[in-house]
């Protein structure tokens, strides 16, 4: 099998002395959606942060398009075409929607208007609210701003940490649809999700983490069909 576009291989590391990640591997192919699920405290968000360089690895490697990026800072990874949407505090609340998007494109020196239009086409509500302070928007709209900000760098990989946390089921479905749209444009998507069932339904690949290790790894559909995964992690 060819090398995946982005892979965090056999990652081991944690915040203090104890390792939260114990040799887990996460990968995503070009234009595909990979989802990390698992119980609370399994190290899902930590694995995501490790891939983005916000956590120092003791062992393992992160490779983007075949190149070793393990030693790069998060900022340097942004320049390499990775974008990250944190779970909380992922927008500039006091700035307008459009300014949020402009800040997303801060590293770019070229004309950003085309990208801005693409984001507005993807999330039409943001076009209507572009002069409004992002902090005044609803939870779902804020998530759209957050994802839009990350898209402004024209990334090749979009990483989302629980994008549907705290939004209503209808908004969640809508967000998942948009995420599929983004993947169709060729952007790889790696996301951590609490709503495992819905997330696996749109996933090309699913990773079930337990205590910092890979418990199950398969296509989203196969995981959904696996009786053991269903019983242990999807509530029957």
């Amino acid at each position, binding site marked *: 099998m060819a090398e995946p576009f982005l892979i965090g291989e056999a990652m081991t590391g944690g915040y203090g002395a104890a390792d939260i990640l114990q040799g887990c591997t996460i990968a995503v192919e070009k234009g595909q959606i990979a989802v990390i699920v698992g119980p609370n405290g399994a190290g899902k968000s930590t694995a995501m942060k490790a891939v983005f360089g916000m956590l120092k690895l003791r062992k393992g490697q992160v490779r983007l398009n075949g190149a070793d990026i393990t030693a790069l800072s*998060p*900022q340097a990874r*942004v*320049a390499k075409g990775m974008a*990250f949407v*944190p779970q909380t*505090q*992922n*927008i*500039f*609340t*006091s*700035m307008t929607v459009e*300014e949020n998007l*402009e*800040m*997303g494109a*801060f*590293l770019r020196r070229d004309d950003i208007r085309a990208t801005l239009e693409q984001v507005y086409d993807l999330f039409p509500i943001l076009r209507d609210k572009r002069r409004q302070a992002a902090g005044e928007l609803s939870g779902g709209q804020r998530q759209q701003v957050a994802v839009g*900000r990350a898209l402004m*760098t024209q990334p090749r990989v979009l990483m989302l940490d629980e994008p549907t946390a705290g939004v209503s089921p209808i908004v969640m479905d809508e967000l998942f649809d948009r995420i599929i749209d983004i993947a169709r444009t060729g952007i790889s998507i790696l996301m951590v999700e609490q709503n495992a069932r819905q997330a696996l339904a749109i996933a090309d690949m699913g990773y079930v983490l337990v205590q910092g290790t890979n418990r199950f790894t398969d296509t989203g559909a196969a995981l959904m069909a696996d009786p053991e995964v269903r019983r242990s992690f999807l509530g029957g």
Partner: protein
Amino acid sequence: MDVLNALVVFANFVFVPGLAYGAQLALGALGVTLVYGILRFSNFAHGDTMAFGTMAAILVTWGLQSMGISFGPLPTALIALPFAIAATAALVLATDRGIYRFYRKVRAAPVILVIVSMGVMFVMNALTRFIIGVDEINFADGGRFIIAAREFKELTGLAEGLAIRTTQLITVVTAAVAVALLFWFLGNTRTGKSMRAYSDNEDLALLSGINPERVVAVTWIIVAALATTAGVLYGLDKSFKAFTYFQLLLPIFAAAIVGGLGSPLGAIAGGFLIAFSEVTVTYAWKRVLGYLLPEGLEPEGLVQLMSTDYKFAVSFAILVIVLLFRPTGLFRGKSV
């Protein structure tokens, strides 16, 4: 009852001085609020940064005067201002390099930075006194009045006069220009927006590729410009004395906190609120009331709520009330 004369007395002793003082406080509070919003600590050295900037302006003014350069009816200090700003910017940038940057790197708690800034305050204060001394210095030259009290009386035929000093008008105009420039910069330029983004959400700003050291450096330069301008305007309006700027720290902090720390708009509103409160509470209202109240009811006392010696108590009282009932300030800044 004589409303017109009452109004003139009010304008002469309360409104015009309050407006000028408010503009000076607003400029000072803007500097404090910018440091708080971006560097995340209360900068106690701000008063002495103003003193240093004013001192630099005075030295350049003397130099210009000795060369025979003047600004016509306007004070020579206005020509000196850009040079003084450059000197002050160099000083605060050097201070940041040598002192604050270390504490940023070790991610020191804000309270430690406050103590550090107090140390910087003592050093800057000593530096200023060492260079220019502790005496009172008047460096305002040019025309003294836009309109003098006697001219006003002759012009209007009223019993009361209204004097507007050149320095008062210059203060208000300069402050308005400085504030307009600052808001344009923060709202419309790439660097200004990145400063707001950094103040709003530091982590996300880093994720967006905003360079924090650049943001900090630009902030210090703007703070130096605001502090020097505020200091020079205050010195022109009153006089220069190294210690008075240290005492200005309280009303300036009160203004920034009342408006909401981190909020530029709040700093301006806070500056005028504190200034007008100070002036109205310490002003003897006897003459205004004498014109307004019907005959026989004129007050016999001065109708002065508080002696001017206690004017700092006004800032303190407002500060306490705001912190008790609305800790984030009028414009919802960060809570202290």
